């Protein structure tokens, strides 16, 4: 069989297409703020980061896949040290200490931590002795994911920390019992219901369900105790959610959650961003207002409109066509990456590529969900589109490393059979 280093053109084209939308959106969102050509201001810097990305991509493709595999843990440890370092020497911007200043540039190690964690989890799970059905290995995997998440929370950037939950999908794919997912989803359901109807009613409903359930299955004595325990656990969880919500979370965090769940009408306060975002996107109509013609974008009504809320510009100027199209492109990229993961012959590569797809999926879901009012406001960027060097570089590294692994899949086949 012929061995050939071939890049997956479908992914590459999707990457380039999304990158162009990103540059155009950043340009549109900033063109009135002093930068008047594509090459100036934020769009110019965005282009520069893409230039750096291309350079990094070439470097990645010049390196042997095995290089990454060997150095996986070094990447991880190195980035963890960087996260710790940020806590001490980082620059504080907008309330979180998550930036490292290097000359005139600021880097956000949290963005790169995903890259290191993907390597580490891939290296760990591909180890011949590791199985997620073993409690020890499960805890280790949890620690690999949890350490960066905790360090990032310590920086005060809860949104970026949440991104690490996308690795649960990776663990699930690699054999984690679905119970974890079921428990997780149940927890989210209870959380939402607690917020909406309160612990009291929720407890009543749970007890009613328990009563009905037991009246049908009381003959099966084995089920009685676990179902009672489950019900009590649900109620207890609900109480703790209530407690955490009112006692632990800060007021602005409480409000964000309440606004998302439509429990609070506060268009000028916590809901301001989302409200303006919805207005911008909603006013785009089917066709959009046209490139550079978004009055809401131009009017600077949306906070963070080049970063977290960049999707508003696409929605306003491109209308439904372009916003749905952007989601389509992302969906295709994610599915393509999942497919690349699937066709990887080595577990290490599969886990890594799968992680990349899952991270993008998580970012997409949370970021766009937030701008259209389906998710609480969590400040994470839209991959490849939001302005920001760290984010662009991190996602480029993730994607090109995945593509590098995919490109050399035939070698793996050979090595297996030779």
């Amino acid at each position, binding site marked *: 069989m012929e061995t050939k280093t071939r890049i997956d053109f479908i992914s590459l084209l999707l990457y380039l297409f999304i990158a162009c939308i990103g540059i155009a959106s950043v340009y549109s969102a900033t063109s009135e703020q002093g930068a008047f050509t594509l090459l100036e201001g934020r769009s110019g810097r965005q282009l520069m980061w893409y230039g750096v990305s291309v350079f990094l991509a070439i470097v990645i493709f010049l390196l042997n896949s095995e290089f990454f595999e060997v150095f996986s843990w070094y990447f991880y440890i190195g980035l963890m040290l960087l996260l710790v370092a940020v806590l001490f020497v980082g620059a504080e911007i907008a309330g979180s200490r998550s930036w490292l200043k290097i000359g005139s540039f600021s880097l956000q190690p949290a963005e790169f931590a995903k890259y290191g964690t993907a390597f580490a989890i891939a290296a760990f799970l591909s180890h011949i002795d590791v199985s997620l059905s073993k409690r020890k290995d499960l805890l280790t995997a949890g620690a690999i994911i949890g350490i960066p998440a905790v360090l990032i929370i310590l920086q005060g950037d809860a949104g970026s920390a949440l991104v690490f939950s996308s690795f649960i999908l990776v663990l699930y794919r690699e054999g984690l019992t679905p119970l974890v997912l079921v428990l997780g989803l149940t927890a989210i359901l209870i959380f939402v219901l607690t917020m909406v109807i309160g612990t009291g009613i929720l407890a009543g409903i749970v007890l009613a369900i328990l009563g009905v359930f037991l009246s049908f299955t009381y003959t099966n004595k084995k089920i009685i105790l676990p179902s009672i325990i489950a019900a009590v656990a649900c109620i207890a969880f609900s109480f703790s959610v209530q407690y955490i919500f009112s006692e632990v979370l800060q007021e602005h965090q409480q409000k964000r959650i309440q606004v998302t769940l439509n429990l609070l009408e506060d268009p000028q306060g916590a809901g301001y961003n989302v409200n303006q975002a919805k*207005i911008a996107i909603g*006013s785009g109509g089917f066709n959009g207002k046209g490139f550079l013609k978004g*009055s*809401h974008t*131009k009017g*600077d009504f949306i906070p963070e409109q080049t970063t977290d809320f960049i999707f508003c510009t696409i*929605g*306003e100027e491109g209308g439904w066509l372009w916003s749905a199209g952007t989601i389509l492109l992302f969906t295709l990229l994610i599915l393509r990456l*999942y497919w690349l993961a*699937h066709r990887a012959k080595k577990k290490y590569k599969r886990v890594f590529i799968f992680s990349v797809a899952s991270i993008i999926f998580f970012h997409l879901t949370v970021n766009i969900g937030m701008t259209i009012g389906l998710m609480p406001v969590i400040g994470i960027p839209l991959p490849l589109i939001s302005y920001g060097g760290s984010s662009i570089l991190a996602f480029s590294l993730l994607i090109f490393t995945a593509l590098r692994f995919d490109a050399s899949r035939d070698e793996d086949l050979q090595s297996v059979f030779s």
Partner: protein
Amino acid sequence: MLSRRSYYIYAAVLIVAMIYVYRLFQLQVLDDKYAVLADKISLRKQTIYPQRGLIFDRNKKLLVYNEPVRDLMVSVPFQIEGIDTSLLCELIGIDTTEFRERLERAEKNAYQRKAVFLKNVSNKIYARIHERLFEFKGFFFEIRQDRNYKYVSSAHVLGFLGEVSRSDLESQESDYYEQGDFVGKKGVEQFYEEFLRGEKGEKYIYIDKLGTSKGSYQDGRLDIEPVDGNDLILTIDIALQEYGEQLLQNKMGSMVAIQPKTGEILALISSPFYNPRNFNIQNRSEFYGKAAVNPTKPLFNRAVSAPYPPGSTFKPLMALVALQDGAINPGTHFPCPGFYRLGGRIIRCHGHPSPTSLERSIASSCNTFYCHTFRTMMQLDKYEDTEAAYRSWYNYLQSFGLGRALGIDVNGESKGWLKDAEFYDRMHGKGSWIYANIISLSFGQGELGFTPMQMANIAATIANRGYFYTPHVIKSISGVDTIPSKYTEKHQTLVEEKYFNAVIEGMKLVTISGTAAHVAIEGIQIAGKTGTVQNPHGKNHSAYMAFAPADDPEIAIAVVVEESGYGATWAAPMAHLMIEKYMFPDSTTKKQYLEERLMNADLIPEKYKNGN
């Protein structure tokens, strides 16, 4: 082969994508409220105010012109970050407490996401701030047209502008006016508002959240250019008007001069008057309150709003009505012993030769003659009873424009007092009143009241020998061919032309050998009639009406000077000087001593001066 778990994950990705795409469809395509909201937030309609029409006098002298006023506006909601508020406060001369108060008020009154922060910014403050305005994002100026005046004159005729009131806004038929617009409030500014105002223009612009313009909306396709207002040429002769104002200064009273052949009002003066410059938008708040509580009522347009009993100035009209009705004829004489006895009551006259002819009765202002005349008319055989006779008398007067608003184009017109027969029915009981109850009407007292405008119109009607045109101050409107048709319609009275000669002869005698002979004007034959109006509240009102030249009248005039004394002392000489001024505008009067005495006299009773 894909594992089941992989399928689940693919499905999850697709489900999220579908939910989001549908949600976007819902926001962007199905629900159009967001487009409306977006425009509401980021679109602003800027009103472009047209130039209001200018106002000229009959000789094309500019009276009223426009002067821009600037309001400092603030965008709402206001973003205070990055603004040096203490510097701004210093520049516009307020303190930070006031700054906060004004901001709060602005946010309450915001319309189109903006509100007035500081009204009528003075030129001094404007010069200080406008070059640095870029430092104060969210603040901008809006320019509107205020009025200014070439002459400190004619305030009551011209009226003034004011901000449109809430009730005006609610009752307007179209939705032309918006809160904060200026609208004519009085005088011709109000009456000819629709011509003067022009049409506002509109400009739609996008704004950012600081309220700064971000360019035009739809490339200006929806923008509307403003249309400037029509200029007005008034019938007022500003030289005559100013002269009259000088004569009436420091007096309470009024003068109206009309060109009889056209009904054009040459001068319309109410005194005390006010400086129109003090009543433009910029200055009014400073002066209005004081003027409004001034006991001499400078804001009150006596010329059209104040009815006075005409007193003896009514006699020529009384004679005309009696002539037409057949109660007297030009040769009628009545004896006058110096009084008229009415049962136990005596109505006094004053010393003059007896018996009195019609002409002499006017020249000497004989009360007895008119008591006889009135009694005769009320008891004419053709009338069933006094009431029928009174109705006839009433109709004659109505045909002279009395007892009703004439329909002039200056607001605030009073109907005057002219009671119908029903009034006396109510007062005395039906059928139980006779001439004796109402005899004082015959010499212009009792339940009779004419505004100076109505008196001047009587003079004009007599000058015309029986007809009048509704008095008006509009001569022409630029861009419009005609003036309102009601000002070109001839109103014929019920008294035929042939009866006027005898009366006019009598009025001529007034200035030859009668009550106003001492102030006759050389070279102009004036027909006039003095009046001394009894005033239960103080000194008599001095009244006079006249027209000249008597045989080819060019000017008719009525003058009332409140609480001053005899008609012959004040009103008559003033009217004569006005006539002289109008007939010989370029030469100074030979009666300079008279002019001086009149101009310098302060006839405002002390009680009004000391009043609070």
